[in-house]
């Protein structure tokens, strides 16, 4: 089982001027696993995600990715080794079309050095982009300017841009926030189906328990910077601590 571990965080700690934001966090993520991270506001979920993706450097502890120590790695280096993320507020290029957004993401994932000076309009990259847009069911929107599109489509594009480099692990920060109730399951169905095809491990922060229950293999619950529960969804959502500190019942 241990050979399947793609990401491992050991004894992670983070404090800001004496305020503890993460305390002794130990997590292992297996290949293809889908994990939901839950917790009230300020529980330490985003701090954990930010430490994993290099946005924040842990005060102490170790992060290993595919067996290599990546503690404190820069975000763009994390992307290069296959650790990508999407954002709570979609981070896309608003003045460009959907296809242009993905073409840039794809080109940066596929090219390096001198080839970055080759024209972006490449037939093979264009075809690959169309395939991904089709997978995420936004192919019909490819020529539309992003700022004119709904939050749901922007979210899908944001995630599609994060996966073009075939990451081993993707961190999704509240993938359904700002999305209408009617759209949320549709979006998650598309995203999870697409990521399962590539056996990408998924770690997503979510407040919506319906989404958590329906899509994840494992739940990690945070409270005051600590992990209070790490279990399959049914067990986790009926855990006393989770009910008291996360669900607020």
């Amino acid at each position, binding site marked *: 089982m241990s050979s399947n571990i793609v990401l491992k965080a050991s004894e992670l700690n983070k404090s800001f001027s004496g305020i503890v934001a993460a305390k002794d966090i130990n997590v292992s993520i297996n290949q293809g696993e889908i994990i939901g991270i839950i917790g009230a506001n300020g529980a330490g979920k985003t701090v954990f995600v930010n430490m994993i*993706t290099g946005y924040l450097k842990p005060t102490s502890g170790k992060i290993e990715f595919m067996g290599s120590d990546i503690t404190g790695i820069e*975000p*763009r*280096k994390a*992307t*290069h080794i296959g650790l*990508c*993320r999407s*954002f709570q507020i979609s*981070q*896309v*290029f*608003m*003045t*460009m079309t959907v296809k*242009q957004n993905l*073409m*840039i*993401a794809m*080109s*940066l*994932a596929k*090219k390096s050095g001198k*080839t*970055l*000076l*080759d*024209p*972006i*309009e490449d037939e093979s990259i264009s075809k690959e982009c169309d395939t991904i847009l089709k997978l995420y069911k936004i192919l019909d929107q490819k020529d539309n300017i992003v700022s004119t599109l709904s939050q749901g489509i922007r979210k899908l594009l944001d995630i599609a*841009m*994060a996966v073009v*480099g075939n990451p081993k692990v993707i961190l999704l920060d509240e993938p359904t926030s700002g999305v209408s109730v009617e759209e949320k399951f549709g979006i998650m169905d598309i995203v999870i189906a697409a990521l399962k095809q590539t056996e990408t491990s998924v770690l997503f922060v979510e407040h919506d328990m319906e989404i958590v229950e329906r899509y994840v293999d494992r739940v990690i619950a945070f409270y005051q910077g600590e992990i209070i529960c790490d279990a399959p969804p049914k067990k986790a959502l009926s855990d006393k601590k989770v009910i008291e500190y996360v669900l607020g019942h």
Partner: protein
Amino acid sequence: MFTGIFKDTSVRVLIVFMISLCVISSFILPDWMQNNFMYGLSRGLAILGLMLLWRTNLVSFGHALYYGFGAYAVALCQKYFGITDILLRFTIAVVAAGLLGFCLGFILRKYREIFFAMLSLAFSMVLYGLLAKAEFLGSTDGMSISPSTLFGLELTRQYLFFLITFFVICAAVSIQAYLRSTLGHLTTAIQDNEIRVEFLGFSVQKAIHIKYVISACLAGGAGGLMAASLGQVDPDSMVNWNVSGELVFITIMSGWGNILAPFIGAIIFEFIRTYAFEWAPQAWAAIVGGTLLAIIFFFPGGIWSIIEKVFNYGKKKDVK
């Protein structure tokens, strides 16, 4: 990088425009107009560089630093090494400004908005101060530059104009090739969303640095060509803050929609200034300023947006 570049409409229009300009100004228009075209095209290179930065939301109020540095590099190479060949002069100006841009880029790439603008102005004023005090560089009187040669043969004004047009075409085509590339597309992407670019695995600071060096090279080349066509360099007409202001002024006036825009804008600016000075010597600056205000109010996209509207109007009529 240059794959299929000559199929690009912008490149084709640019080449046709430049060749037409050469033919018309050589055989039809008077000499003074050719001078205006020559100055406009030379300065247009610096505007092209500013346009690149503007696409990333960066406005440099100190680009006269590179413009003047290129011009003084030409003057110094003549003084100490006797270099008068126009190809060498242009290359030296581009390389010297590029090297300076490369060094200062490490500092400037960390700043945005007004901080970037003012820091670049500060650097240019440091150079201005040094040049104005340095007696071996002619102090405020500057230095004179002898006529350019090409492979040992002295160039007439007309041939100099043809060569300047050639340099401008080469530079503009290279910039278009850059803008079509993945790296070039990051110009607008960074303006839109720096965080996303970083998380796509590319360093925003590196992308800005590359763009800044290209922009410095263009401004240096412009300064070198201007020095060669004017036959004189001095701190006030090459490095002072008002020169930087003029470059930004023309950039806003030109718009950033196309590689041809900076050259059209720079040529129009030369003519507005010439005629304004002729008709109202006491109030020429007010006329030039009024023109910019009119463009900002009525055509915020600059002169290029007027051209685009005219052509799109034509297309819409065809469809009907």
